[in-house]
């Protein structure tokens, strides 16, 4: 019977091969070691003779298409208890404990809460994102004041109405460089010798990784001071010495090369000046680089409107807060002129994907043309449109960021994962647009109110002053000179009140992405203070000037980027405020009248300026 033994050995070997074939990888260890008490407690309760009456926080979604972060399981069930996923898999093999609230998911798809790998979170961002199924925000620059509170909140599995926040904290930039224009007092690394101290200070504040700005402004037609290569390298080294990631903001290929040469772990934008070639992509893949292309903000900066994505999704539109509406409707200056560059950005995506560079979905909300939550869905859709398969695009917003950033068992629906779930109608694994059709969102196992009425009120101050017609020239003290030297440019301006009019003189110089110089009028008692001016409908101007083109900028809603309009100097300029997309009259801050062309010395006189 020697032959029989050989046959049996062969069969055993074959089955042995099956046992070692690769399993799905994820951020989660095979056994959920971090939640042994919860799962065993649930198990004991089920085994006990007295059935447990449906405990709050325990529910199951059944008959659902399940995307677990890496793959799709049809006809599946997911069971949630105490803020964690306790079971997920095919209906046939997933036991549903007695007394579990069951939600029928027929025809729907359950996904892990989405992760936006590039945001700037302030105000209502965390609740705004949640209404669109984005349960984790990876912030790439904000002040660290509330980090302690944020860290406690994200460690908890208690019900919450806010997305979890992880953040780089302050960014590393040069004096007057990108990141310093938003009114946040950013500590500067100032040279390679100070890099370690700078990084350590960030980590002490509670930063989760280090973000380095490499931005010379060239991609946007200007010049901005930027960190030198030695400082960038020193910062990366300092971050790696402390075992944290170092990521870089770049806008051009040259800046990306500088970042990669310095050894950064990832780029948090794709550059716009050229498409990625396959050889470069392969080199980056070999280095293990990841990229957050931030297609939504690039699309907006290259002249595409953010609102278009919502066509046909009225339910989603109704969930936008006033802040989301404002940022989505805002536009970047001169964006339309750069629209031809989009093709290069889009062409880079399949090249990077084919080479194996890890791509993560990120929006860069709330920049102009983007909104928290919604724009992350836009990012997934755009990744798919650029050439990723729907599944790859979904992974880019779930398992991929969870594998790169230190955010624990998020972006997955497997036992032990945080119970952050999105339920959508339709099948995003064949068409990611289905993500806009949200049926339900759960954060830490608790259902999130999708209606904007139930969301926390926005920061808009109440209507405390009448919105009557106002003559802007009546009080010269509410005017100030304003020019791009404030933002790192080289232009300058001065103002001089003149018997019911305002004389503005100055010099317009190249040096900023969009040079400007002129005068600004603040609506509130202090500069840039938001006030409710919903009664206004037009701005009438009478401006004499030796300049050829004037630029009128409106600041509102706390947005650092103004809404603007170019006009020629004339006696009766009428601006219809309702026609300005993104202008938030409920939180009006200021209006500026600037010279935009040509460069050189100018002299203007504002003879009349009136809001009605």
């Amino acid at each position, binding site marked *: 019977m020697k032959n029989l033994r050989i046959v049996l050995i062969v069969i055993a070997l074959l089955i042995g091969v*099956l046992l070692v074939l690769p*399993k799905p990888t994820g951020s989660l260890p095979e056994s959920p070691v971090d939640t042994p008490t919860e799962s065993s407690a649930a198990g004991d309760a089920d085994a006990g003779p007295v059935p447990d009456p449906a405990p709050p926080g325990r529910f199951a979604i059944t008959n659902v298409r399940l995307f677990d972060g890496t793959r799709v399981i049809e006809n599946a069930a997911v069971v949630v208890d105490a803020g964690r996923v306790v079971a997920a898999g095919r209906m046939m093999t997933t036991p549903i404990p007695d007394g579990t609230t069951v939600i029928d998911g027929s025809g729907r798809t359950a996904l892990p809460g989405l992760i936006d790998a590039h945001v700037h979170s302030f105000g209502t961002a965390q609740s705004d994102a949640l209404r669109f199924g984005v349960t984790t925000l990876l912030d790439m620059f904000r002040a660290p004041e509330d980090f302690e509170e944020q860290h406690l909140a994200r460690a908890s599995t208690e019900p919450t109405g806010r997305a979890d926040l992880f953040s780089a904290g302050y960014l590393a930039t040069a004096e007057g460089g990108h990141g310093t224009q938003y009114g946040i007092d950013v500590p500067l690394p100032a040279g390679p010798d100070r890099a370690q101290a700078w990084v350590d200070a960030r980590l002490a504040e509670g930063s989760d990784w280090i973000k380095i700005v490499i931005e010379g402004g060239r991609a946007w037609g200007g010049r901005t001071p930027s960190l030198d290569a030695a400082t960038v390298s020193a910062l990366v080294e300092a971050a790696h010495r402390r075992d944290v990631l170092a990521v870089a903001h770049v806008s051009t290929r040259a800046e990306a090369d500088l970042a990669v040469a310095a050894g950064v772990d990832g780029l948090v934008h794709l550059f716009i000046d050229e498409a990625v070639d396959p050889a470069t992509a392969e080199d980056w893949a070999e280095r293990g680089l990841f990229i957050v292309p931030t297609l939504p903000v690039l699309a907006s900066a290259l002249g595409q409107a953010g609102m278009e994505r919502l066509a046909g999704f009225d339910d989603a539109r109704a969930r936008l807060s006033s802040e989301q509406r404002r940022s989505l409707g805002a536009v970047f200056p001169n964006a339309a002129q750069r629209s031809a560059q989009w093709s290069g950005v889009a062409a880079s995506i399949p090249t990077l994907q084919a080479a194996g560079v890890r791509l993560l979905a990120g929006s860069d909300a709330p920049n102009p043309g983007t909104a928290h939550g919604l724009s992350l869905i836009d990012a997934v859709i755009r990744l798919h449109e650029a050439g990723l398969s729907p599944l790859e695009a979904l992974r880019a917003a779930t398992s991929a960021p969870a594998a790169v950033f230190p955010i624990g068992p998020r972006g997955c629906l497997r036992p032990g994962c945080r119970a952050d779930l999105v339920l959508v109608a339709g099948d995003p694994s064949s068409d990611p647009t289905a993500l806009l059709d949200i049926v339900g969102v759960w954060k830490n196992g608790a259902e999130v109110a999708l209606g904007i009425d139930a969301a926390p009120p926005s920061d808009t101050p109440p209507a405390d002053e009448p919105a009557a017609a106002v003559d802007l020239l009546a009080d010269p003290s509410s005017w100030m000179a304003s020019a791009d030297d404030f933002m790192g440019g080289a232009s300058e301006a001065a103002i001089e009140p003149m018997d019911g009019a305002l004389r503005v003189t100055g010099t317009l110089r190249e040096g900023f992405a969009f040079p400007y110089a002129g005068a600004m009028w603040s609506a509130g008692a202090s500069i840039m203070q938001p006030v409710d001016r919903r009664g206004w409908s037009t701005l009438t101007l009478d401006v004499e000037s030796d300049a050829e083109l004037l630029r009128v900028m409106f600041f509102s809603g706390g947005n650092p980027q103004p809404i603007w309009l170019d006009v020629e100097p004339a006696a009766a300029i009428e601006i219809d405020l309702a026609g300005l997309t993104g202008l938030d009259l409920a939180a009006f801050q200021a209006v500026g009248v600037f010279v935009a062309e040509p460069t050189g010395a100018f002299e203007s006189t504002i003879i009349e300026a009136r809001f009605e």
Partner: protein
Amino acid sequence: MTAVNASLHLIQAQWLNLARTPSYTLPTLLFPIMFYGFFGLLMIPGQALWLLCTFATFGVMGAALFSFGVGIATERAQGWLMLLRASPAPVGAVIAGKAFGALLFALIIAVVMSTMAAVFGGVRLATGQWLALAAVLVLGSLPFCLMGLALGLWLKPNAAPAVLNLIYLPLGFLSGLWIPTMQFPKFLQGIAEWLPPYHLAALALDVTGAKPADWAPSLIHLAVFTFAFAILTALGWKRLDGTRG
């Protein structure tokens, strides 16, 4: 005791037969594997899991059909079956030996293709799913063994390989084993649901999570199919009595 020993020896003889005729064994194994390599991995990227399920179904079906169909037809022509029937040797053991051989082939095909899918196609499945896929394929080859047996009893030996190919290839294609039936025109899609390989593939797709399926209708289809060929086999066996083989 002697009967058991005789059975074991006959089963073993079938093994030796397989092991000693690599000219038959290797092509039977390599053909579907090569097919999967070309179509499942090289030409249609990104569908490695789906095509693993369907091409592996195609492979195990072929191994079962040919080892039985051609083998039995040839042995019938050589008079070997008649001799066996005349001898005290348990004929069932011959069939069992062949069936065991076909199942081993099915296992080899399942394991090799799964390995290819994992290494070259990036397919990742839970261990339980890899095992379930192999189990579905191995057990699922049994109805096709019976089909091969019936055809082997009915076909002329020199016609058997050609006729089997004429049945095997269109059956595989129409069942959506090469191209998913969703890509078919409507009337062809209707045909697929009546073909047994379609239902075996549906089970394979289900256990791997590629596409959900209701097990009951598929199992009923396969059972009816098995029953039909069991009757054909019985009739073919009876027919042996009346002919000179």
